[in-house]
Every structure is written in structure tokens, then in C-alpha cells.
């Protein structure tokens, strides 16, 4: 248990980050390609390059083949400074194209994680200290996540000032909107019932809402503390997960390109499970050896 909350960055932990991270990235890529979007609005990079190529259904097999090839190189740790950099460029192209088609998936941080990992490998090519690479490739990824939450907190300060939590009573309009989005999509009357239920609940618990919003803002604003040490990030990640569960419960909103990388990199549940399972297994093995 102690190893999960200390400041050590291990190779094993990196393995349990990169595999789920890549699989998640490619599943989103597949989803975008399946949707058959059309980059009609030219946002970001698409103002300079014809991004349609990257999301055109006709190019699906080609794009997925390239992505899988990069994935194999990424997981097998081959030419990492270039592999991660090309993954960053590809991710940027695909998500810019998706945004140009009118979808705001807020996936900037998601692409930037590949760049942060690339920076770690580029530093390694100048400073060949393996322990530092082990730390940097995870810690830099944590920084990419932390800055997104931090800027989100700054946005609240810029757009609403310190009154953001106390303005929260108007969140009911956002809740009604959110469940109505579902209703106009599937015409399931339950969505409107849910909206009415949550609006009533929030109107009856204004002070609790104020406290919860204040906590979530503080969590976002002080996230730089989480990246100082590995163990802090895991505890912080659990608190952020709680915040996201709350947002999902009340507002039916999950920003997947935010939440999933945070879980994989901050908490790293697979690594936690393996570490917790590893110790008893080792203990049993050692007992078995002694008794033999």
C-alpha cells in the first residue's frame, strides 16, 4: 500500500499508463472515423492544413493502420521521441478536424500528453539517466493534465470572479439544458423527469451546492500541489474523480477526454490493482518456497 503513495516512479507504472492510454486514444479515434464527420468550419490547425483527410471515412483503414503501427512502436518503446511526437501531431490533426466539424470534445490536454511524453524522451537523449526518464515521462504527463484543470479554475475566476460558487443557483438552467439534450435525442420522457428531480433537489440544498462548488474550484486551482509528488497525485486524482462523479450524477455530463486520462495517469487503477495483488502473491510464494 505504501508504494502506491510514495514518490517513486517505476517502469511498471509506466507500462500500466501507456497501454490503457493508447487503447483509449485509438478507441476515440475509431469513434471519430466511424462518425463520418465533415470538417466544414476550419478551426485551429485546419485553417492551415486540409484536415478532412484525417477524418474522412474513405481513409479510415489507412489512418487506423498508421495509428496501430504507432501504437505498437509506443508500447514496445521503439524510437520513442519520434513515436510520441508523431502521435501528438496525429492527435492534433484528428481532434482539430473533429472540432472543425462542430464537436467540442475539449481534447487539447489529451493530445498535449503525447507532446509532454515526447519532451521527456528528448531530454533523455541528452541526459542519459534512466531514473530521470522513468520519472519525467509520467510526471510530465501529470503536468499536462494539471495545467488543464488549473486553467479551467482560472477561467472561472476570469469569467465569474469569486462569485462563481454563489452564482451556482443558476446551475439549474444548465441541468435542464443537459437533460433536454438527451430528450431531444431519444424522446425518452424519463430525461425530463430527471431534470425536474435534480432542479428541485438543488433548489432545496443551495448551501450544500455552494460548498460543493467551492470545493471543486479549490481542487482545480490547487492542482499544481498534486504534481509535486507521485503519491499526492494519486490522492488528488481520487478527489477529482469524486468531483467528476458528482458532475455526472447531477448534470449528466462527462468530458471523457478529461476524465479518462486523469484516471489513467493520476490514479492508474490497473497499477494499483497489480501492486496490491503482487504483494500477497509474493508473500504466498515465499512461504511456499520455505515450506518446500
Amino acid at each position, binding site marked *: 500500500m505504501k508504494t502506491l503513495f510514495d514518490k517513486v516512479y517505476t517502469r511498471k507504472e509506466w507500462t500500466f499508463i501507456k497501454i490503457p492510454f493508447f487503447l483509449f486514444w485509438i478507441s476515440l479515434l475509431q469513434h471519430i472515423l466511424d462518425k463520418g464527420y*465533415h470538417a466544414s468550419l476550419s478551426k485551429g490547425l485546419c485553417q492551415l492544413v486540409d484536415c478532412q483527410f484525417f477524418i474522412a471515412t474513405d481513409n479510415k483503414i489507412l489512418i487506423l493502420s498508421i495509428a496501430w503501427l504507432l501504437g505498437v512502436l509506443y508500447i514496445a518503446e521503439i524510437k520513442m521521441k519520434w513515436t510520441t511526437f508523431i502521435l501528438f501531431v496525429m492527435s492534433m490533426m484528428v481532434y482539430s478536424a473533429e472540432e472543425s466539424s462542430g464537436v467540442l470534445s475539449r481534447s487539447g490536454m489529451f493530445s498535449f500528453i503525447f507532446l509532454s511524453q515526447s519532451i521527456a524522451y528528448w531530454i533523455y537523449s541528452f541526459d542519459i539517466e534512466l531514473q530521470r526518464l522513468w520519472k519525467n515521462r509520467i510526471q510530465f504527463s501529470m503536468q499536462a493534465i494539471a495545467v488543464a484543470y*488549473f*486553467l479551467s479554475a*482560472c477561467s472561472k475566476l476570469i469569467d465569474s470572479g469569486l462569485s462563481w460558487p454563489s*452564482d451556482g443557483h443558476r446551475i439549474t438552467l444548465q441541468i435542464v439544458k443537459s437533460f433536454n*439534450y438527451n430528450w*431531444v435525442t431519444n424522446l425518452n420522457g424519463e430525461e425530463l423527469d430527471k431534470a425536474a428531480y435534480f432542479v428541485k433537489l438543488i433548489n432545496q440544498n443551495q448551501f450544500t451546492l455552494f460548498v460543493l462548488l467551492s470545493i471543486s474550484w479549490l481542487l482545480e486551482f490547487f492542482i499544481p500541489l498534486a504534481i509535486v509528488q507521485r503519491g499526492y497525485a494519486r490522492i488528488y486524482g481520487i478527489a477529482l474523480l469524486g468531483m467528476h462523479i458528482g458532475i455526472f450524477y447531477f448534470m449528466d455530463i462527462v468530458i471523457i477526454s478529461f476524465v479518462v486520462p486523469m484516471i489513467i495517469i493520476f490514479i492508474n487503477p490497473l497499477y494499483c490493482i497489480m501492486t496490491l495483488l503482487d504483494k500477497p502473491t509474493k508473500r504466498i510464494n515465499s512461504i511456499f518456497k520455505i515450506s518446500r
Partner: protein
Amino acid sequence: MNQIKNKVNWFIFTFGVFVLYGIGYLIFGESHPFSRYPMYSSFPNWSYVFYFTDKHDKIIPFETMNIHGVEVSHLYYLISEDLQILYGNFQESKEDLDLLGTKMIEIIKVQTDFDHPFIKLYRGGYYLENDSIIRIDQLMTTIDYEDSI
């Protein structure tokens, strides 16, 4: 001196990527991968929902077009920014709504290839008045593909 150097070194490695992203945002603004993630950064006294209806004003669920209501609303905000139309708080004029609606349907048609010959796009708007939620529905635009054929 060495201690200061160590501290600077520590700061660069611990927060370098963090700062780099911030600088990137200041230079490039809201351009992927940079953003200040302004979602729900304020709780204004308005919110919008969009929906399609047919000739008989019956709602056409978005799932029949393989699209979600959220995507349609994102389209509204992105097109408004593209056309430099100020949005929110019911300030859009009838002409603005017509222009935005036509462009929205145009893009959705390209992406989903829906086959409804007649379609109306409405905007449902909510606001709070004395703690009660009020809803106003406005017709944005009507497209009659049969007519254009």
C-alpha cells in the same frame, strides 16, 4: 549558488510542461491543443436547446440522424463564433437565428445525410425569473428540400 541552481532546476522539471502549455495558450489562444477550458466557467441566466421538427411540428429525435443534442448545440456556438455573431442571453436577432439555423442544417445534412424532405429547426431557451424557470421556443429556420427540388 548551487542551491539556487538546484531549485531552478527542480522548478523547470516539475512545472516546465505546465508553464509551456500556459505560454502556448497565451500565444495561440483557443486553438487545439491549447485552451483555457472555459466550460461552465460562469452560470449565466440563459441556456439553449435545439431540436428539429417535421412538417406537422412533430419532434424528430436526433438519434434517428446518428447525432446527439449536445453536438447540435456545439455547432450553434462554433458557427456563431465563425460568423462573428454575438450569442447568449437571447440577444440574437431573427436574421441571425435564420442564418445560424440554415448553416447548422447544412452541416448536419452533410454529416448525417438525413433524408427528411421538410425540416424546421427550433431553439428552446431557458431563463430564471423569480426562481422559476421560463422557457421560450423560437423557430430559427425552415428548410423544404422538396420545394428546392
